[in-house]
């Protein structure tokens, strides 16, 4: 709520302007009533000539214009505040999301973030564009109308003053009784269209089981049930407006009666006063009634706005980087893990005190059961998360002292599921580097990654569009695109998350050859799933539950570590038994 107020006050200049316009609107409404009355009285009671009222008529046109224009401008200000807020919020959200560790970005929250950025921000709109201007109008216009009525005829003013509070009181009483109940029901309602979707999604299953007819009756039944629940809730809302209507009608009636009695019996007021009040009183109630509906509508967008703004309150671990440039040299750096440790906030997992040294151009394999901490190590090395204990040292210097950019510039990360962006396949390979690249370089990289024959078989070659999220590429092909990116980049360090399954033999072969080739100029650190990779590794890091059990070559681990021996032998035919 505090945040919401803050976003509104950031635009305080325009807010004052809005208040000014609203007052002008109220003023126009009052003056309009006076002018109309003057004209009616003039011709009806004072028998003025038409030329005598022309001035009034012209003034009336002007006032009507002012009323329309101030209404338009105040709504327009609301719209432009809404636009600015949406822009700012979206920008801040993106900046915030972009600074989060990749870890968080990958923990199944992506969908939520996407909808927050798109729909969440969009839903904020009506709070600023409609709710705020409407609340102002509904506050100032009745206030002004009532003041004017009081100045004209105190009795009528008192009637308004006495009846007006009934409106909020009724709303509160009815609201309190039903609010919770209807909110519970509303939740059900929201899930109803989900049920319809559920049925549609299950159509194939229904068909395979020959059950479509029954489901059709089900839809009708639940649809009508849904209607009845909805109607129960709506009846409450309708009763509310019914009561509002009755109250306003009653008091308008009482005002009219009272005016008539004053006019005839006591002759204490003039026709003029009576008619002005008669025009102003409906304006008073209309504005109040609108306030009711506005609050009702405003609630949902206020909720949306609060939800978005709450995002800013959650504190995240950010990633630490320094200011020094890490110069890219011809020889890969020596990487040293010095008592490296990391743990996730909501989990029991700890990566504990890892010590290891990777010499230039070595081939490193990280092995262990799932959940042992292999990916965490890879993420630490990539700088996607910052160590909580110990350090990663690059040529004896702590990685966190360098800039992110200079570290990433000499690194390639080949994940199990590389993301393919919408664009051409050539553009996707060119992503490997931030520098501009020639067509030949791209082709060269594709060649090295073994994807060139496939690309060249396509109608548009390197200009073939690969759709949103790389639609149309199999996982083996995505993997090869990712390798091509690495070839283009010529990194000093390659981080590879080996695929667990699902690749065709051709891709398997290419993967092996390509990694060998990259290894000629770079240190390759692999989360390994293939025996071949492990056997040829210079060093194997064997992890168990976040602890480094041993470092060594395949043979030395086989000889000295029963757990390692067991793991390797199970895979080799263990299941066949």
């Amino acid at each position: 709520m505090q945040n919401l107020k803050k976003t509104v006050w950031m635009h305080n200049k325009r807010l004052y302007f809005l208040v000014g316009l609203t007052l002008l609107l109220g003023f126009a409404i009052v003056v309009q009533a006076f002018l109309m009355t003057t004209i009616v009285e003039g011709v009806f009671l004072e028998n003025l000539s038409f030329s005598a009222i022309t001035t009034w008529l012209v003034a009336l046109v002007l006032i009507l214009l002012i009323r329309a224009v101030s209404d338009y401008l105040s709504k327009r200000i609301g719209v432009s505040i809404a636009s600015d807020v949406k822009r700012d919020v979206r920008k801040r959200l993106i900046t915030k999301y972009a600074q989060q560790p990749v870890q968080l970005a990958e923990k199944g929250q992506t969908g939520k973030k996407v909808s927050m950025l798109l729909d969440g921000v969009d839903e904020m709109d009506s709070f600023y564009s409609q709710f705020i201007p409407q609340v102002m109008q509904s506050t100032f216009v009745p206030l002004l109308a009532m003041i004017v009525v009081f100045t004209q005829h105190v009795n009528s003013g008192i009637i308004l003053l006495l009846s007006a509070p009934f409106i909020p009181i009724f709303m509160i009483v009815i609201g309190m009784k039903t609010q919770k109940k209807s909110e519970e029901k509303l939740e059900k309602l929201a899930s109803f269209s989900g049920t319809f979707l559920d049925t549609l999604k299950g159509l194939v299953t229904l068909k395979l089981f020959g059950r479509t007819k029954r489901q059709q009756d089900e839809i009708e039944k639940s649809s009508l049930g849904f209607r009845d629940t909805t109607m129960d809730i709506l009846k409450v809302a309708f009763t509310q407006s019914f009561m509002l209507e009755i109250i306003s009608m009653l008091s308008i009636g009482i005002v009219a009666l009272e005016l008539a009695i004053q006019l005839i019996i006591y002759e204490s007021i003039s026709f003029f006063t009576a008619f002005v009040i008669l025009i102003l009183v409906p304006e008073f109630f209309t504005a109040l009634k609108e306030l009711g509906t506005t609050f009702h509508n405003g609630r949902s967008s206020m909720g949306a706005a609060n939800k978005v703004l709450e995002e800013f309150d959650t504190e995240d671990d950010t990633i630490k980087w320094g200011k020094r440039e890490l110069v890219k040299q011809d020889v890969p750096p020596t990487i040293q893990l010095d008592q490296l440790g990391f743990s996730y906030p909501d989990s029991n997992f700890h990566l504990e005190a890892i010590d290891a040294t990777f010499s230039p151009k070595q081939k490193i394999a990280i092995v262990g059961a799932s959940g042992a901490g292999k990916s965490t190590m890879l993420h630490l090395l990539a700088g996607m998360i910052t160590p909580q204990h110990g350090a990663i040292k690059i040529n004896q210097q702590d990685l966190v002292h360098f800039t992110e950019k200079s570290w990433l510039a000499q690194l390639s990360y080949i994940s199990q599921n590389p993301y393919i962006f919408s664009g051409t396949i050539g553009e996707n390979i060119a992503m490997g580097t931030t520098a501009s690249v020639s067509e030949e370089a791209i082709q060269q990289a594709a060649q090295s990654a073994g994807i060139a024959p496939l690309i060249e078989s396509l109608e548009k070659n390197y200009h073939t569009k690969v759709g949103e999220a790389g639609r149309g590429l199999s996982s083996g092909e995505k993997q090869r695109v990712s390798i091509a990116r690495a070839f283009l980049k010529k990194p000093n360090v390659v981080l590879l998350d080996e695929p667990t399954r699902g690749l065709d033999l051709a891709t398997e072969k290419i993967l092996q050859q390509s990694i060998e080739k990259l290894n000629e100029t770079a240190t390759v650190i692999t989360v390994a799933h293939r025996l071949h990779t492990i056997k040829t590794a210079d060093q194997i890091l064997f992890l168990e539950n976040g602890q480094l059990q041993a470092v060594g070559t395949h043979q030395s681990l086989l000889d000295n570590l029963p757990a390692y021996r067991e793991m390797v032998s199970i895979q080799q035919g263990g299941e066949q038994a």
Partner: protein
Amino acid sequence: MRDLQKVIKLMLMEKKDIILAIFLGFIAGISSVGLFAASGYLISKAALTPPFYALIILTSTVKLLGFVKAFAKYGERLYSHRATFTILSNLRVAFFEKLEPLVPNVFHKYRSGDLLGRVVGDVESLQNFFLRVFYPPLVLLLVFVSTIFFTSFYSMAIAVILLVGFLLTAIVIPGLFSLRQMKINGRVRQERGDLSTEITELMYGFRDLKLFQQLDLKQDQLLAQSQTYINEQKQENINKVYSQSFNGFITFIISWFVLAVGAYLVIDGTLDGIFLAMLVMISLTVFEPAAPMAVFPIYMQESRDASTRLYDVVDDPDIQVSEATTTVDQLPDAAPALIFRDIRFGYMGDWRTTIPKLSLSIPSGSKTAIVGASGSGKSTLLQLVLKLQQVQSGEIYWNQHDISTVSGNAMWEQAKVVLQENHFFYGTIRENLLLADTELDDVLLKSVLAKVQLNLFSLDDHVSENGENLSGGEKQRLAIARALLKKGHLWVLDEPTSSLDSRTEQSIYHHLFAQAENDTLLLVSHRLTGLEKMDQIIVMDHGQIIESGSYSELMEKQGYFYQMKTLEDSLL
């Protein structure tokens, strides 16, 4: 527009509620006009010191009209909303009926997630059609006609002014804004789609963007896209606001004319001055129900789009099913032999053919495994057998019948299917199992649950939409249980145990193969271990069969299968 007519036709099924809503809406509108007219007259009359009884009658009228209005409004809201939700229900049923025969054809062209979300959303947005597009103009028309008729007794000129006002505020101005709205709306939708793509790319490709140092660039692109989208939205909103204010202004001007002309007529002597206040009050209130007409174009546009999109799908000539071509409605209750002859298949919109050319024979009662890398066309083959997709050339035979002549229902009656993605409905475990056959008793259901090692579940356990409260392994086992319970002699299993550990897998396969002993069975397997007992193994790569034979034959041959097996064994 034609599509909207179809919606209207569906809508008119609820005649009673619609007529009541319109009638009550009219009463509400006209009593409101009457109320203000009477109070205007009351004041004027009072100014002339009338007899007291006249005043009493007038004030009672004012009060009475007030109550009538409030009650009528309540009734109008009640009936119009009830009609709306009944109409919505009819729409849902109607679309389900229309969509049902088109499944699975419809998925050849449309992606299922997109399509279904769209259908649901569009049906939902059509609720505004009755509520804000269809009946308010009718009510408005009735109120205006009566009001104009009433005013014509006092002054023809003022009646004409009101008529002009009605035409302007209810028809001309909304029409003009409607045209503008259409243009903007298309752009907003376009920009929104683009922004959605940008956001999705940024968030889902986050890691790669970051590692390739493209994050800043992408972020800037996104912000630029967001800005154009916001600008279009702003344009749309300003148009809306402008339309509202402009319409409001016109109604004021009409009142002004009523006042000016009325005043002139009073001075002229053709109109009694006592009616002037009444006429002015009428002109101020009669336009009140016209205010929603300002947003009419927006809802009109929305409804039109929604109905067009809905009927685009169900009337799409590409996916229509002609029942005439199927001549076989019943298949024998026995294990079928299947033959694929030179089939070719590619997904619509995909840039390569999934299965370029393939022939295969599956004898009756045999057990066949299909293996290969992901994307090699294994699952597609199963979809084709089930008629969930249709071959583009070549034939598939079920015994002697070309399956294009066999009705889907006849085939599905014989099929026991576990797909990669199995759907479960909101309800209980029992309800989901009874899909197989409603007659089954609990004892049998429980015994099957035990076979798939789901005995921890009770039959009354809750299943949420899409089975979201079940783990992947639980869903697979429940799907197998469902297939075990179903009648039929062709088993079609697409990686049915990929989320299970090998011990559970073996135990379930044991039950499954025992029950399938005399049936024809097709199994797409993610694992190569344990395929020794299959009659034949089909090895696929890029949509082609590159090897086939029994397990021992393939291992002896030391070809592709052997290498795949070696690779699998070397995985940690």
